[in-house]
């Protein structure tokens, strides 16, 4: 086992421990389960979109023209953009959207894991190395499925509501 494999989990545990220590004590009368999702302001959506598109486009450009540059960095840029996009609020964020968000996160989490497992299995089956798939791909899948489910559910609701029957 290499040294960084031991140190990084320890660092994470240390950070979590600090958070547990400095976490303010909650009033016992406050509701334990609250719908308190804090999101980034609306305009962060555009920043996220731009960052993700830059990462996505460069991914193809670099692949063709400069094969010696690490692609992982560009995938990282893309996933980071998607993360900002996913964490920014809508123009009118209310309880209905929060509900749709929660549902989408639930499906994205499990569908993301499922897609990843299937890909790992297929890769292993055709003889590729399992280590080739880094965790950034799982995160990418999850964010992609989340954004897809959220916007399609929102659009579907809008279409259904606009229909008269």
């Amino acid at each position: 086992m290499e040294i960084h494999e031991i140190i990084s989990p320890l660092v994470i545990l240390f950070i979590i421990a600090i958070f547990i220590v400095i976490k303010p004590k909650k009033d016992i009368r406050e509701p334990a389960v609250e719908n308190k999702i804090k999101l980034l302001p609306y305009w962060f959506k555009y920043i996220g979109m731009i960052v993700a598109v830059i990462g996505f486009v460069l991914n193809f450009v670099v692949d063709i023209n400069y094969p010696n540059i690490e692609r992982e960095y560009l995938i990282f840029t893309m996933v980071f953009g998607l993360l900002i996009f996913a964490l920014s609020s809508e123009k009118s964020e209310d309880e209905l959207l929060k509900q749709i968000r929660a549902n989408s996160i639930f499906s994205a989490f499990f569908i993301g894991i499922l897609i990843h497992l299937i890909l790992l299995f297929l890769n292993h089956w055709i003889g590729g190395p399992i280590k080739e798939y880094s965790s950034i791909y799982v995160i990418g899948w999850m964010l992609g499925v989340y954004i897809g489910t959220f916007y399609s559910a929102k659009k579907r609701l809008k279409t259904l509501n606009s229909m008269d029957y």
Partner: protein
Amino acid sequence: MKNTIKVERAILDLTQEELAQKIGVSRQTISSIEKNRYVPSTVLALKMSKLFNKPVNDFFSLTTED
């Protein structure tokens, strides 16, 4: 669950947009509640009750499926 929000809205002569603004949600939410696609939270139901000046039971009621 079924509701008569559309009727209550008509009594007060409010559009979906106006009702949405008064209780601080989007028009899509009002539309979804009216068409029974979304069950609002208690807080939202009570806000409507205050606006319509009626108990919640008067415009929300259970159906046999609930």
